[in-house]
């Protein structure tokens, strides 16, 4: 499903012109269809960079990024929107439109991707039911709890029935109870066949999932276990990971 082949990505440093920060350093990995993979690592390890590469928000400096056998680093600009409909994404800060209702936030994603009104009428309630927000359709995002906001974001990400769902710190702003709720929702979505990549700092989440864990540090994959736990080889990283936002 997803293949990274010697992917390297660096950013220009605005504060030091001419210098670059190496965010991903020769990363190779494969994720099969239907997997639920946790991506862990200390702050600045390169998790979000990997997420941005996968949603074609950034391009690698070198290497290949294959998703469903297509090299997405070579997508033409006009192909990007269609690719992004195949890959759902959610973030720590939800990215909801505050002036649209819960239902409108989902409908908006369909409207701007040329869906028919019939399609919109059918899919919006289905997505709300999927994430357990069927009775909140007319509410505005600021009337929702953090967990409900993230569920709305997940509903929106799933609206095009993507084959891959990527979550970058989805529980970063949530309390432990709500975190469990979101993780269970992601597991449920995964069981229906969607490949899930979950970038997180949260040790409890990773340990409870008992699924594959890929650890990155300084832009490199430092461990990759099929049934992993949240443990990092370098001790300073383990300390740094506690309580740090993205």
């Amino acid at each position, binding site marked *: 499903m997803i293949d990274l082949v010697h992917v390297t990505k660096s950013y220009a440093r605005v504060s030091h012109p001419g210098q670059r920060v190496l965010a991903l350093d020769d990363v190779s990995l494969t994720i099969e269809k239907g997997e639920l993979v946790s991506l862990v690592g200390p702050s600045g390890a390169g998790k979000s960079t990997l997420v941005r590469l996968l*949603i074609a*928000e950034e391009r690698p400096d070198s290497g290949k990024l294959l998703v469903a056998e297509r090299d997405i680093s070579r997508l033409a*600009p*006009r192909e990007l*929107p*269609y*690719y*992004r*409909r195949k890959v759902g*994404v959610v973030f720590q800060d939800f*990215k*909801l*439109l505050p002036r649209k209702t819960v239902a409108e936030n989902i409908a*908006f*994603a369909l*409207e*701007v*991707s*040329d869906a*028919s*009104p019939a399609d919109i009428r059918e899919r919006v309630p289905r997505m709300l039911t999927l994430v357990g927000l069927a009775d909140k359709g007319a509410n505005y995002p600021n009337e929702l709890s953090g967990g409900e906001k993230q569920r709305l974001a997940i509903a*929106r*990400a799933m*609206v*095009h029935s993507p084959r891959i769902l990527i979550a970058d710190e989805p529980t970063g702003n949530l309390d432990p109870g709500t975190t469990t709720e979101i993780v269970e929702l992601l597991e449920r979505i995964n069981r229906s066949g969607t490949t899930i990549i979950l970038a997180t700092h949260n040790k409890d989440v990773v340990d409870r999932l008992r699924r594959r864990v890929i650890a990155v540090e300084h832009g490199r994959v430092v461990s990759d276990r099929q049934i992993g736990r949240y443990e990092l080889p370098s001790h300073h990283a383990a300390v740094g990971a506690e309580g740090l936002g993205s």
Partner: protein
Amino acid sequence: MSLRSLGRVLRFGLMNVLRNGWFSIASIIVITITLFIIGVFAIQSFVIVGTTQGIQDKLDLSVYFNDDVPEEDILAIRTAVANRPDVKSVDYISKERAFEIWQERRTSERVKSLVTPEDNPLPRSLVIHAYDPGKLGTLAKLFERDQYQEQVRRVSYRDNQSVIESLVATARSVRQSGWILAAIFFFLSFVLIYNMTRVIILSRAHEIEIMRLVGSTTTFVRAPYLVEAAVIGFVGALLALGAVYLFLRYDLASATPLLSIAKFLAPDMLEFFWSNLVTITIVTLLLGIGSTVFMSSVAVRRFVKF
């Protein structure tokens, strides 16, 4: 883009105009002022050009003869003058014709009754049209020479010419100041609309980011801004047309120093406005919509990163 998407883009654009409240109003106001200035000056230029053309055609040289000159002599002079290459036509106005013209004049009956066919003091004359009205002076000099002194009572042409010259000169300077003003306001509206679009785009960075993440096409992100601009241009053009009409209707031109030449042209300008209403409307709408869409597309191209 499908028809459905086009409908949505239009809806988003219209919603944006309302959402931006004061920004939209400010842009509409500058566009209205810009188009209004262009409209008034353009109409005035056209009318002045039309008027001078009309007057040029009417320019002639009248040579009045003393009553004791035999008609054959006048007709001989007429033939001689008509043979000149720079003369377009020469008309002989007999006493009878002069009387008719007198009767057609819009003066009081009392003045008209001063002249009767029996007691007709009106002189006979030759009315000369030149191909180039500027040559009338040279022709007039001919009749001021000694050989005609006994025959010619009076030569008249000068008054018209000076009016024409000053009209043409004023028209030119009015048009120049009109273009300068229009250019200043075009620049102002560009600065305003460009910056307005920029600020709106930056303030909607969040929304644009979401649109990108959910797989929206570039058109969907950009086109509503252009629709928004088109609406502003459209409304501005309509308001400008209304303003131009009121300006002409209530003859506000006379009160405007730069436009004081328009004082005696006001009825002509209103008449021109009505008889060319369709053209004026189309040109104003095209200019309004075209310029606002262009202005905001420059900003959209620069600031909508996708």
